[in-house]
């Protein structure tokens, strides 16, 4: 080995030491740094025809890592990610196109297990050592329902059929509550929204709470400080609604009509349970390229509505239960990467906008 080679080797060693712990922010392709604390898991739904869903990770030191799945596993997820659930030691990603539930290590994001065979998994809720997942395939309604996955074996162990298109699911009062609606695949329209209650301690006994007369679909559920369950109802071209589940009469009532509740209809209760967060579509920007969207709260007692954040192209949002911060993103029409924004609970913008994956729509905060 000549002198030049030794010199080169020396520089290479120095460089490798210097760069080994480097990380880049707001860029893809960098190594993950597992020792840091995850502040927010950003679920990037992806563009359906490109199947480029994935996750971005925001750490407590402010660094942001995109393509976290690809970095950890050496290949892309190759799917659309509808939602994610914190399962304790793992994150569960509910994926479509390819239909699967991918379980990732909580810190390293390496794939731990993959559950297949559930058509179009949508949303999930963890109860003990089980994950309950709704399945909602518009084109094959017969397999829709609630699936139970054992988190020890990562195997599907039970299936509870549901009519229509089940969406959001929550766990409350020893019951699983699922939002759903009957669905006509020919006319692409939902009708007869309902909420279904499964009693875990009563052999999964099923109770159905209907909202007569509405043709919108029940999408998501939240529980307020009084233990009242709220459901969002939405449909394209119609003013959405928030309703409360009357557990005594077994029906949905106390309708609050909301101008253009945005289609996914995500709602969240604040950490104190005195506010319900929701999102509306208020029109379109000049030229019609972007939706003007607003995140609002409704006081569960007074029913007064407060606008918290306004912006363009928001598709989903999340509320940090610890700080009350609101996370959302302009999805730029799913044509390219989304721009994530963080706001305080009073609507003050905390960042300039960070580039995340395509279609960022769910924001999870580790328990």
């Amino acid at each position, binding site marked *: 080995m000549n002198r030049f080679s030794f010199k080169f080797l020396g520089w290479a060693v120095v460089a490798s030491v210097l760069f080994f712990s480097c990380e880049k922010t707001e860029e893809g392709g960098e190594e993950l740094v597992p020792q840091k604390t995850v502040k927010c898991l950003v679920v990037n739904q992806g563009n359906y025809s490109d199947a480029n869903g994935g996750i971005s990770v925001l750490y407590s030191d402010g660094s942001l890592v995109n393509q976290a799945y690809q970095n950890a596993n050496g290949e892309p997820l190759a799917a659309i990610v509808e939602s994610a659930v914190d399962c304790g030691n793992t994150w569960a990603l509910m994926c479509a196109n390819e239909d699967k539930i991918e379980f990732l290590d909580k810190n390293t994001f390496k794939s731990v297990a993959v559950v297949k065979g559930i058509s179009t998994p949508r949303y999930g809720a963890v109860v003990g050592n089980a994950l309950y997942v709704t399945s909602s395939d518009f084109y094959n309604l017969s397999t829709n329902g609630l699936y139970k996955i054992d988190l020890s074996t990562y195997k599907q162990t039970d299936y509870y059929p549901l009519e229509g298109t089940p969406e959001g699911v929550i766990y409350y009062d020893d019951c699983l509550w699922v939002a759903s609606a009957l669905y006509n695949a020919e006319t692409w329209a939902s009708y007869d929204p309902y909420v279904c209650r499964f009693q875990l301690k009563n052999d999964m006994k099923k109770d159905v709470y209907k909202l007569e007369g509405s043709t919108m679909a029940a999408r998501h559920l939240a529980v307020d400080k009084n233990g009242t369950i709220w459901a969002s109802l939405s449909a394209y071209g119609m003013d959405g609604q928030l309703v409360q589940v009357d557990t005594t009469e077994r029906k949905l009532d106390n309708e609050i009509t909301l101008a253009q509740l*945005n289609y996914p209809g995500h709602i969240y209760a604040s950490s104190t349970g005195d506010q319900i967060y929701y999102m509306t579509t208020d029109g379109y920007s000049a*030229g019609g*390229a972007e939706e003007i969207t607003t995140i609002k709260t409704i006081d569960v007692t007074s029913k007064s509505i407060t606008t918290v954040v306004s912006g363009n192209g928001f598709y989903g949002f999340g509320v940090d239960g610890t700080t009350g911060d609101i996370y959302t993103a302009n999805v730029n029409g799913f*044509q390219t990467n989304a721009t994530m924004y963080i706001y305080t609970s009073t609507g003050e913008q905390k960042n300039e906008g960070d580039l995340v994956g395509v279609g960022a729509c769910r924001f999870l905060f580790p328990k």
Partner: protein
Amino acid sequence: MRNLFLILCLLLSTPLYSQNDSLQIHELQEVEVSTFRPISNEAFSGTTVLSAPTEVLSQYQNASLSDYLAAGTPLFIKESGYGMLSTLSLRGTAASHTKVNWEGVPINSQTMGQVDFSQLPILFFDEVSIYPGGECAVHGNGAIGGAVSLKGKVLFKDTMSLQIHSTVGSFATLHEAVKCMVSTPRIHSTTALYYRKSDNDFPFYFRKEKQYQQNASFYDYGVMENLAFRISPRQVLSAKLWHTYYDRNIQPMMQNNQNSAKYESISNQSTKLWLDYAHYTPLLWNVRLGWQADDQLYESHKIATDDWFMQTSVEKSWKKKSVVDASLKFGGEVHVIRPEVYAYLDTSVECRSDVYLLSKFTFLNKLDLTCNLRKDFVSDQIVPFSPSFSLSYWFVKKEFTRLSAGMGCSRNVNVPTLNDRYWGMIDNRDLRPEKGANTELNIGFEKMIRKYQLSAQSSLYRNSVTDWILWMPRGNIWKPVNLDHVLAKGFELSIVQKLLMKKSSVSLDVHYAYNHTEVKEGFAEMKPFENRQTPLLPSQTLSTTLYGSVGNFHYTLLGKWVGERNTTDVFEQLDPYFLMNVAADYSFELKKRDRKFLYVIDVGSQVNNLLDVAYYTMPYRAMPMRHFVFFVKLYMNKN
């Protein structure tokens, strides 16, 4: 004033490289009896032209136009799998910005606006010409990115030919075809029939696991008739028929390959029929009445359109009478379209029509000028004028050497498709037409030294499109909206060489294309994406075609390199790839039983994707690696 004159001279000295009087990159085969054919609108085009070499087309008679364009030209074809939907984007524009005319009639889907090139059998055409660069005044509404012209020959001379093709290939692919041409001084008929099927179960790798493609089988068949009757020396009556049908399973994405719940299928029937009457002197007057219909079944959903149309034109040429040669053509067409689509709000009839005036002048055999204008009329829509203008100047125009330079500009429109206007049970008729402003500079050089021919051509273009239509999520559906501004610009270079020897010939075509298309205005927060190429379109492509013959042996080597492509995710790129296809055949001339007929049996083979490259043009839509085709052709020609 003098300076102004100088500037004007400079401008005139960079005129457009007009294809019509040049030797061309690939010389178009002139119709033998050209007086029995109206001047095509393309003759008024001021943009460059890419013509498929007839030698190569003859070796790809068993293939679709998609197969040839994807392998043998710098054009980028988006294929949703092998034998699946294949669309062509010219110069960085969208698939619906490529106008495809068969014998002067637009055959783009009325619902989608695009053309599935996998369903255009090369067998049907004698001439395939691509006109990159928008020029709606010439090609009609929709040609914002460019146009493709497909034509057959009409001879009116005493001759006949019969071709029978039989092809087998990998993945249980079968292609049978017959093409018969009979011509007399009064009647001409060309009939072509084909049938193709494939199991299409090619292997591919996904997550390092070898899989065999599922649910991608297809079959299709078609018939084409081109009939012409010379009523008198001044009148020709002709009829054209096209009928194709395909039934195919839709190739699933790689990750869904083994999930039968995701399998889908589609079938489509396309029929075109028209009558054409031409009267020649003193003016050439042409009128055409026709009907074309598409009937598609996507799963159980019907997507159908009926299009009744009439075209008429009057033209006159003045040749060699003075220092100026001139051609003028005035015409128009009316289409009455009745859609029957399961997802439309209603099935109201839509009327689309246009009028145009095309002109071309040649001054002193040195300066070519084209000036064209078209105006479209669409139900409930105001469509702006589409003018185009070009200049080309021949610095050298000798028998064996030619050098020219030119410039062209055009304003183009694309009226929203029926899907844009009606899809999703909503009324979108307020959607504005897309508008393109195309400018380009061209330079061309041709040289012939004894048996060696060299042709080089280069273009620089800029295409600014406003109100670009993009489908965006709106609640639970996707809906088209107008984007403010998309800019496409680029550079193209073509070098064609040919060496003719006594019993052999060899040609080498090299084409390079650079394109950059980006959204300049549209989303309020597109700043991070400035200077970024539109997803899935390569910035660079390079194609080489080596073909020739030695005696009765013919060969073709196609090489194509496609550069890195962006995806919708800025952190992810699709890798570049290089494909190579080889074709060779040998012609056995059978003993002539009499001197009038020549019998030839041609036996050959193609090896596609010779280098066994794993690639895809659309994300996760697998394409076959190395595969083979064997063919036998029987020719009978009356001399």
